[in-house]
């Protein structure tokens, strides 16, 4: 059994209510932080913990907090990014739905550390029922004196506001989220200035993922040093993984980042093996935008070492032979899945979600989708594959926000690792409509760049 810090109490009956949550030891961190610590020491603890942002990029949270500008007389804001829209990722939904008070607790402590008296939860529009849960929890916490004016008699005021999004993936990008929160069109801003200097209403702002903020609670309770002992290397603490695809037990799992990918997929404690005893073909280990990995590169790195479920191990080998932990949306594909179709689905998603602000992303995502559609439906040619490669290369890194990269990476990785399958689609236009390429890929030697 791995260590559980966030989901430990998830199965306690009635944990959604303040009463039960408090009885189970909830809100201790608020008392500790507000009464025994000051904002600087909290930031220091978070730095010590080595906590990395759980939204996808994995940026050290403590460092992000220390960047926030503190001009005199200007209010600061903390914004909780609950716009979890990455296909394959549903860990934040689970947290908010079953443990709303854990998020609030983390939010209160973090707001105190950052000096934010008006804290916002920006929640995805499709999570229609969750704002009610959160708002109810906020009312309960307010009634118990953990929110509102003069919390626990310490003189710290904090209000948490829940704002629903309108169903745009792009609003998960922090500056687009801020724009949307301000009531504008959710277009990413051009950086610099970064939100830490000019964010919400041009005030210093920190935007953190739901899971990151929830992880603040155990860090305060057990201390940053203790927290850092869990996990391995720079991947400290626990991480929620939302596993889905062709596995026996899809769901949200909390792991301590020391287990191997093989164990995660095949052990009964986690995914419980492949559904129907089929063979593993490929996996997208961190949400739809990270590079897809074929089975042989997923379980072992290019150097032949075991691959573990943590930031460093999953990105071992760079994009040539590795991937990313990303947001923890673990999508498993078995031998019956078609990589071309899978890539088309992802490309369609990114085309649909591009905000249309900058030209490479606006035009490039649509172009990639059209070419993939052609190949998938048996009308492609070999030159289309090269063209696709060239388009993704021209998008990547040339856009305002990471959506361009997120659209380019899955296409690049699919061609990089499954070019034979693309070629098979082109060369067998009729056969590819009725059958699958299957696992022929394993015959290929793995290309290891020098």
């Amino acid at each position, binding site marked *: 059994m791995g260590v559980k810090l966030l989901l430990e109490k998830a199965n306690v009956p009635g944990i959604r209510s303040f009463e039960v949550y408090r009885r189970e030891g909830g809100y201790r961190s608020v008392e500790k932080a507000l009464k025994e610590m000051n904002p600087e020491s909290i930031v220091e603890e978070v730095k010590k913990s080595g906590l990395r942002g759980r939204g996808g990029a994995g940026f050290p949270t403590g460092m992000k907090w220390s960047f926030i500008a503190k001009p005199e007389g200007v209010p600061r804001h903390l914004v909780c990014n609950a716009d979890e829209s990455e296909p394959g990722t549903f860990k934040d939904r689970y947290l908010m739905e079953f443990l709303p008070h854990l998020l609030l607790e983390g939010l209160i402590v973090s707001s105190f550390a950052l000096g934010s008296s008006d804290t916002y939860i920006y929640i995805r529009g499709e999570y229609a029922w969750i704002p009610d849960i959160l708002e109810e929890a906020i009312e309960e916490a307010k009634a118990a004196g953990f929110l509102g004016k003069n919390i626990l008699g310490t003189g710290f005021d904090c209000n948490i506001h829940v704002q629903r999004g309108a169903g745009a993936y*792009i609003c998960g990008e922090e500056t687009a989220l801020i724009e949307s929160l301000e009531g504008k069109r959710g277009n990413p801003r051009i950086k610099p200035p970064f939100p830490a200097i000019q964010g919400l209403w041009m005030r210093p702002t920190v935007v953190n993922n739901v899971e990151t903020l929830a992880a603040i609670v155990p860090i305060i309770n057990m201390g940053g040093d203790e927290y850092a002992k869990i996990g391995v290397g720079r991947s400290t603490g626990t991480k929620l993984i939302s596993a889905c695809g062709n596995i026996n037990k899809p769901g949200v799992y909390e792991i301590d980042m020391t287990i191997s990918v093989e164990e995660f997929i095949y052990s009964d404690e986690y995914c419980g093996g492949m559904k129907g005893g089929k063979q593993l073909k490929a996996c997208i280990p961190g949400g739809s935008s990270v590079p897809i990995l074929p089975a042989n590169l997923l379980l072992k790195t290019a150097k032949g070492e075991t691959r573990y479920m943590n930031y460093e191990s999953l990105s071992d080998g760079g994009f040539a032979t590795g991937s990313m932990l990303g947001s923890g949306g673990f999508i498993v594909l078995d031998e019956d899945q078609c990589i071309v179709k899978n890539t088309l689905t992802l490309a369609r998603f990114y085309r649909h*979600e591009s905000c*249309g602000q*900058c*030209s*490479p992303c606006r*035009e490039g*995502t649509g172009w990639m989708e059209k070419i993939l559609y052609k190949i998938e439906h048996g009308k492609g040619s070999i030159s289309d594959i090269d063209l696709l490669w060239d388009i993704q290369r021209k998008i990547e890194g*040339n*856009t305002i926000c990471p959506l361009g990269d997120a659209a380019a990476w899955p296409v690049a990785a699919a061609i990089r690792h499954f070019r034979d399958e693309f070629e098979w689609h082109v060369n067998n236009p009729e056969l590819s409509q009725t059958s699958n390429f299957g696992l022929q890929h394993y015959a290929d030697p793995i290309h290891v760049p020098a």
Partner: protein
Amino acid sequence: MSEQTLFKVTIDNITVEVPAGTTILQAARKIGGEVAPPAMCFYSKLKGSGGKCRTCLVEVAKGSEKDPRPMPKLVASCRTTVMDGMEVKNITSEKVVEARAGVVEFLLLNHPLDCPICDQAGECHLQDLSFEHGKSGTRYEFQRRTFKKHDLGKNIQLHMTRCILCYRCVFTADQLTNKREHGILDRGDHAEIATHIEKSLDNEFIGNVIDVCPVGALTDKTFRFKNRVWFLKPMDAHRDCPTCSGRVTLWNRGDEVFRVTARKDEWGEIEDTPDGQPGWICNTCRFDKKETADWVIEGPREINRHSVIAQGHYSGKIGTTKPNETFTAVNDGRTPQLLMDIHDESEVNQPSIHLSQNKGASHGDTFNNNKA
């Protein structure tokens, strides 16, 4: 800050000193020529513009004197401010040239390329951009995105199919006028400039959106299909206008004023008035004052001699220089003034008339009067 700090920045091996806070693009424009990156969406007179089209991407090889690390990605030069000792590579960087070619391809992907029937042809930034940085063919084989044409009020037509979503008109409408009625609908590749819903734009300064549009998406309905810009003679003129500065460029053919625009500098942006304000013009000046009598003519407008507008006529007046080789040598010692004059035998175009000796522009009446 009484004294401005000057930063040294090197762009394509040319060093220039600019005040702190200047963007790379503005610094490069100070050097001028090919060093200045092209800009489709950036407009120095509009707050918040830029960063969207990605044509002005440059490579920062050295961040600054203090922090010499290069920037990991190409940066939008229009929105990145210079640091002291920064080294920027524009046309000397292969990465930039390649990325820019990619951006041009993306911009042209859904563009109809209907230049032969487009009023913007000849003064279109996208035309220049694709000529300078694009390829001759396209790799796109799918149907292009199209939209219906919309009339935004009685004087402006929006042809979304040509739009490259630079957002300049949105910023103009936002910043010059009081009412916000003009923005972007939808997202991604079906995003469109729109007024909600099909409202007309009837603001006193709304005509300026035509001037800021880099392509032919917003056109002047009083000028649509009337003439090609390179057949017109641009003249600086002014009038005493109660609402705006009244400083304009008239586009004449003979005595006829075909259109009125604000005065644009070499980067295609509106020129400042002598008091340092951007010289936006009002709708009355732009759409209603179409008589020479309405204006005090100052003289011919300087047009960059590389521009197609300056080609082949009104020699020596609009900044054009005569070519070194003459027709005299190749035409049996005849001295034609213009290309049109060479049809001696057929008497096409009345070769006895020397167009460049005309006081005004050449016009149908010139020939008729002469005949009579």
